[in-house]
């Protein structure tokens, strides 16, 4: 008995965590998927009734706005963060004397809560006393910068704050990548008289393709899950102009009392992540087992 216990102890130790993940990740996803196929309203119901919730979802103008915002926000956030992160990493990789301090400054926003970031930018961008008022105070009385309260532009303030928060992190990823590029090849290229910018575009940047992929996955993941930042910065407004899927889901679940809509919107978010993450995880794990 003691022997049996000792040989099986590793599995016994792992079991609680594994069971917890099975229930609280996979079981709960299953529950949400199930409920998304019912007519649940204020309370969950369990009689399956087809795709009615998804029909409602796709017919909803608010969800339409949320998805459009996700494309705008996600696209701009990912591309600008990648470009900015790469440029900063290359600039920082030129034997800068105070590199450590600069890196610390570029990266600290990542340690902040999105609520703090949103609060700060909400104050900076508020038209009454923020940047607009400041520039007007300098004598440019016609200066206008009211994106925060402009339904057509408010989503771009979310993009601005999100880039501020995350671009330093992308920089750190790329910097680590630059440091791991084979210096022999670079030296050889320089001896051959190839100009530095060509060394970057032809050798260094292509060799960092895996880092682009990693950064893309992390940023896409952040974009789809974005919730706190919108809540703190715009509250989803004006109206629901800056709603994202995550805020839509939350509104349906906890203020509108529409469990069916909450479940179906959560499932769409899940599927978007699934499409992005699963091929990546699969290739990562495979590469490791080979």
């Amino acid at each position, binding site marked *: 008995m003691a022997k049996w216990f000792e040989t099986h102890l590793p599995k016994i130790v792992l079991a609680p965590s594994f069971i917890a993940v099975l229930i609280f990740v*996979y079981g709960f996803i299953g529950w949400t998927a199930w409920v998304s196929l019912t007519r649940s309203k204020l309370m969950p119901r369990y009689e399956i009734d087809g795709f009615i919730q998804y029909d409602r979802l796709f017919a909803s103008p608010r969800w339409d706005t949320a998805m459009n915002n996700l494309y705008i926000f996600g696209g701009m956030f990912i591309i600008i963060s990648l470009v900015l992160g790469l440029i900063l990493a290359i600039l920082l990789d030129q034997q800068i004397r105070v590199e450590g301090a600069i890196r610390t400054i570029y*990266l600290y926003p990542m340690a902040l809560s999105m609520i703090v970031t949103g609060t700060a930018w909400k104050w900076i961008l508020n038209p009454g006393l923020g940047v607009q008022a400041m520039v007007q105070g300098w004598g440019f009385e016609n200066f206008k910068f009211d994106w925060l309260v402009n339904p057509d532009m408010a989503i771009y303030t979310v993009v601005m704050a999100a880039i501020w928060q995350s671009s330093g992190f992308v920089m750190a990823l790329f910097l680590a990548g630059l440091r791991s590029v084979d210096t022999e090849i670079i030296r050889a290229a320089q001896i051959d008289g190839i100009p530095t910018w060509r060394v970057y575009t032809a050798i260094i940047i292509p060799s960092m393709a895996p880092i682009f992929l990693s950064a893309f996955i992390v940023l896409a993941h952040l974009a789809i899950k974005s919730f706190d930042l919108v809540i703190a910065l715009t509250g989803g407004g004006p109206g629901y102009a800056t709603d994202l899927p995550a805020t839509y889901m939350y509104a349906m679940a906890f203020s509108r009392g529409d469990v069916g809509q909450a479940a179906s919107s959560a499932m769409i978010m899940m599927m978007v992540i699934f499409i992005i993450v699963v091929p990546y995880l699969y290739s990562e794990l495979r590469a490791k087992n080979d």
Partner: protein
Amino acid sequence: MTDVSATPAAAAATRSQGAGLKTALRWGLYLILALFAVYYLLPLFVMLTTSLKSLEEIRTGDLVALPREVTFDAWAKAWSGACTGIQCEGVRPYFWNSVQIAVPGVLISTLLGAVNGYVIAQWRFKGANIIFALMLFGCFIPFQVVLLPMARLLGLMGIAGTIPGLIFVHVIYGIGFTTLFFRNYYVTIPQELVKAAKVDGASFLRIFWSIFLPLSIPIIVVSVIWQFTQIWNDFLFGVSFSSAGTQPVTVALNNIVNSTTGVKEYNVDMAAAIIAALPTLLVYVVAGKYFIRGLTAGSVKG
């Protein structure tokens, strides 16, 4: 190539011109880097100076101007007097809520992650890799997909809206990451170590306790910092699963900023925001290296 610069004088001129260009480029580089440093620091600077101004000065003054008269009134009010709705106790009680949620949440999830990582990396059995993959995927799900059933389950367990309930949620959804950290760390330790220890008669737990844990200090620091940052900065779980007295500091901050009663006190908002940010900022300043390791562990493996 025989052009005019082939004469020694001309060559020297080109060289010094090249050196001049190099210095100029160098200065330009530092200028750009400094401008970006300003970009990243400016919001923090504005928060800090705003929190030290009086409301009167905020209304009449310039966003980026230094305070003419430094006052800590806003800080005092943010800490113990600002209204988060009907209550006006500042962020203090919620700050302690966050501490009470974060400390056990971090410790339990790190301990579980260490044990899980040890088993998966060193006691490989059939299916261990699948279990790891399933746990890893759990790190990536959008938590919206578990909010509804978790709200019901917490209700059934009788811990809805309580601090133990929030600890429970943070531990459950933290295990994936902590297991990942420790698994990737232990997988680099040769398996001969366990084999040799087994030959010497050491048990499963003893090997973990006396051999692996002492080796694990760096990854424990990474895991603790990661989990602390995640739990402290969490808003989604906090706002979904707390009730009036148990909200974490991020939820309280958002309530203070968006409370519609009375005059809008920007200085108090900013002071409250800085207070909410201080613990994680402090961790970052003290142990930034480990913070970055945690950030990259999930994305760059190696």
